[in-house]
Every structure is written in structure tokens, then in C-alpha cells.
């Protein structure tokens, strides 16, 4: 695979032995314990936010490789079921480690983004993803900058798709965000800014307008 492969899949953070395992999984999936590989990937994404942001990519490649090689979906199934396990215990995960919770949300959204089924997003993940975002929109989470940051990042990446799958829940989510922006005590000004930006972003049909780009993202020229 080489260096570009490493970077593309962000597997530098794994130890050498695990990196080798992953590389083999990509090239010759039937020769490895795919359930183990799935667990390794999920474990890592709960610890390493850089990895979880793009972990969907390596998962997608392994799934394709396995499907092509043996026409099975052991890896995908293990991955999803493990993801589901963590989802069920997410409240506990969050109280245990905010960082791990944020990593988890990043990961599941990335999976939703990358893993498609016959070119359609995975229906089974739509509500769980929404549930996670709703959780991030709760008052105690809005008070934490890292959670607000995670929330708006995910909405930037998958908001449009998510809305297409279920617009009612997106409406409900944004009601919460509006209220949060207006009423929530203890919001840092950065959090307020992030919320305002995402509200505008969605109002502009999930597109960046020039005015918003200028306001939120350009250097202030005095």
C-alpha cells in the first residue's frame, strides 16, 4: 500500500502488527478474522478522532473487497452490530468519556456517509444517527464547545442526506438548535457562532453562500 495508502486510511496510529492486519484485510479479506478487524477499527475510532473522521473509507474498501472475493458480508455485519452495541450504551459512553462519545458520533456519521447499499444510504442508521445528533442538541451538550463543534461538523457533512431520508426529524432537530441558540444559558460565543452558521447553512439549502463564507470563514481585513 505504501505511504499514500497509510495516509489515505489514517492507520499510522496503529501499531505495526495491526497495520499489517489491516493491510491484509484490504487485499485478502477472507484470510483474516474480519470480526476481529471490525472490533479493532471500532475500538480505535472511539479513541482517535482523527481516525474516526475518515474510518468510513477503510471500512468501505474492506466491505467491497470481501464482497468481491467471497460474496459475503461478515465484516459489514460485525461492524454494524458492534456499532449498534455502542449506540445502545451511548449515554453511558458519554458519561464515561466525552471524547469517546464525540469520536463515536463522528464515526457513525462517517459510516453513514461512506457505506451505501445499492447506492442508497443505510436506512438502518438514519434514526440512530438522528438520535445521536439530538443528544448533542440537548442543553447539557450545548454547553460544551466540543459537542457543539461535533454536531455542526456532522450536519455539514451529512445533513443534506439525512434530511432527504427523514425531513421531519431534521425540522425537529433544528427547532432545538434555534431554541438552543436563543435561550441556552452557558453557551460560549464560539458555540453561538457555530449554531448560527449551521442554521444559516441549512436555510441556504445546505450550501455555503458567498455572504456566509465571507462572514464566517474569511479573514477579517481591516
Amino acid at each position, binding site marked *: 500500500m505504501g505511504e499514500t495508502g497509510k495516509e489515505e486510511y489514517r492507520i499510522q496510529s496503529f501499531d505495526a502488527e495491526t497495520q499489517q492486519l489491516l493491510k491484509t484485510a484490504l487485499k485478502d479479506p477472507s484470510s483474516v478474522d474480519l470480526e476481529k478487524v471490525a472490533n479493532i477499527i471500532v475500538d480505535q475510532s472511539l479513541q482517535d478522532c482523527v481516525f474516526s473522521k475518515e474510518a468510513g473509507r477503510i471500512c468501505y474498501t474492506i466491505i467491497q473487497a470481501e464482497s468481491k472475493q467471497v460474496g459475503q458480508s461478515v465484516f459489514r455485519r460485525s461492524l454494524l452490530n458492534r456499532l*449498534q452495541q455502542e449506540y445502545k450504551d451511548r449515554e453511558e459512553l458519554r458519561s464515561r468519556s466525552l471524547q469517546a462519545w464525540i469520536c463515536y458520533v463522528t464515526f457513525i456519521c462517517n459510516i453513514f456517509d461512506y457505506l451505501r447499499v*445499492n447506492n442508497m444510504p443505510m436506512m438502518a442508521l438514519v434514526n440512530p444517527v438522528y438520535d445521536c445528533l439530538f443528544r448533542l442538541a440537548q442543553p447539557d451538550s450545548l454547553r460544551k464547545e466540543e459537542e457543539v463543534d461535533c454536531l455542526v461538523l456532522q450536519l455539514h457533512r451529512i445533513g443534506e442526506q439525512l434530511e432527504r431520508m427523514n425531513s421531519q426529524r431534521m425540522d425537529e432537530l433544528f427547532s432545538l438548535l434555534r431554541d438552543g441558540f436563543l435561550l441556552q444559558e452557558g453557551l460560549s460565543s464560539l458555540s453561538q457562532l457555530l449554531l448560527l452558521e449551521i442554521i444559516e447553512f441549512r436555510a441556504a439549502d445546505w450550501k455555503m453562500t458567498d455572504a456566509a463564507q465571507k462572514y464566517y470563514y474569511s479573514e477579517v481585513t481591516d
Partner: protein
Amino acid sequence: MSFRQRSPHGGGTSSSPQPPPRWSQGRKRGADGKRRKQNGTDSSVFDENEHRPSDNRLDSFTTPEGPGPLSRCSDWGTAVEEDEMRTSVNKEIARYRRKLLINEFSRERKSSSGSSDSKESTVMVELETDEVVLMRRQKQINYGKNTIAYDRYIKEVPRCHRIPGVHPRTPNKFKKYSRRSWDQQIKLWKVALHSWDPPTEEGCDLQEISPVDLGEMETESIGSNSTESQTSSQDNDDTYSGTPTKVRHVDYQAEGEFDLEACLSEPLKDFNTVS
């Protein structure tokens, strides 16, 4: 600008327009198979008994022959696999309909120019569109196709060289057939495919595969055979002695009812016609 008091329940207050009825209204069972309380509101994310199903699909369904509502499994792995099968089946039915239309048009053109009649009378007949039925049929077809025999067959006899009546043909899941008729077609088709089983070692009916695969496969065969319930019990002898299974595409949940008695009482077609 009025600020509404937001409660955790996402259903909205009286000032908001009534949201469209959730799919879950009227469903007798939740995704985990347990009966739902017959209240109007759906649980929010933070309810204690949080049973929000992980997708928007019906969480239970009834087949006419079935004993009652069959609850769908609620694990994501299987849910996605079923999704995949459903979308594939839908694509196939669209493609099949197009094919029928094209045949229809080309036949009309031929007959209007006075040439000979075409093979079959595919006047627009009613197709099988029941998703439950199509999925079940597709699973049965997949079992037949996930065999070494089938692999060898399609390699040996490309479709263009098939002789009808001689070479086995996959039953058409989009045509309307009774359950009994369909199951019989599948059985005969699978039996016919045995002609392409790889040559066996002396006396041993189980096909030789690499040791590693065999280990995995046995678990799979056993698992899937038991979940396939009576559907393959009749084929049991065939399945173990003659139909080696390659790795399967998916692990399937239990099938619906199968009229074993009916199948047993039906006379088998003449085996001699199968080469």
C-alpha cells in the same frame, strides 16, 4: 417572535402543525418484537424504555400463510442485508418490466409486418410484486446459486447456449405462482443443478473443499439449514449429499410457513427428463 417551551418529547406543542403520523402508529409490536403500549406519542430519545426502532420500515409484517405478525430482527447487520436484498429486487423488477415492454413492442412490430408469432404470450400479465414474497423467493434462488454446481453450470453452459427443457433455468420470481408451485419449481431446479456437481471422491458425498472453508461452511450450513426450517427439510438429503454450499451471500432469518405435507404428497416430476 414567540418562544415555545420545548419538552424532550419531539412531538411538538399545540402551536405547531400536526406532524405526519409516524409509521409506528398502529404497529402492534416494536422492533424488538414486544408489544407496544397503545399510546399516541412515540417515545423520545430519553424515555426509559427506549425502544426506538433503528429504521423507518415496518417493524412487523404478516404473511397470509403465517402464524401472525413476524417481528423483524432489530440488529443493524441483518437490517442492512435485508435492505440490500430489497433494493436489488426492486431494481430487478424494474428491469424485468422494461424487458417485458420491449418484448411487447417488438412483437407488435413483427406481427404488424406479418411475420411469425413469437414464442410466449406475454401479454401484460400481473406480476408478483409482494415484497415479502419476492424476498423469500430471492433467498431460495440465492441458496441454489451459491453452490459450486451452479458455478460450474454457468461456466460450462453460457446462457445463449442453453437448450430449454434440457438445461435448468432459474425460476422467474416475478411471475405469479402459487406457493406450492413455486417451491416445487425451486426444488426441481436445484435437483437439476446437481448434474454439475463436481466429481466426488469414492463414497464420500460431501464435496471436498479446503479445510479452513469447510470449518466455516459447516457452521453456516447448519445454521442456515436450521433457520431455513422446513423449506429445505425435504431437500435435506439433497443438500447434504449433493449440494455443497460455497460461502453464502447472507445469513437468513427464519422463513415463513412451508406446506411440507403438500409437497410430500405431490408426485415428483420424472427425473429422467433431467439430464
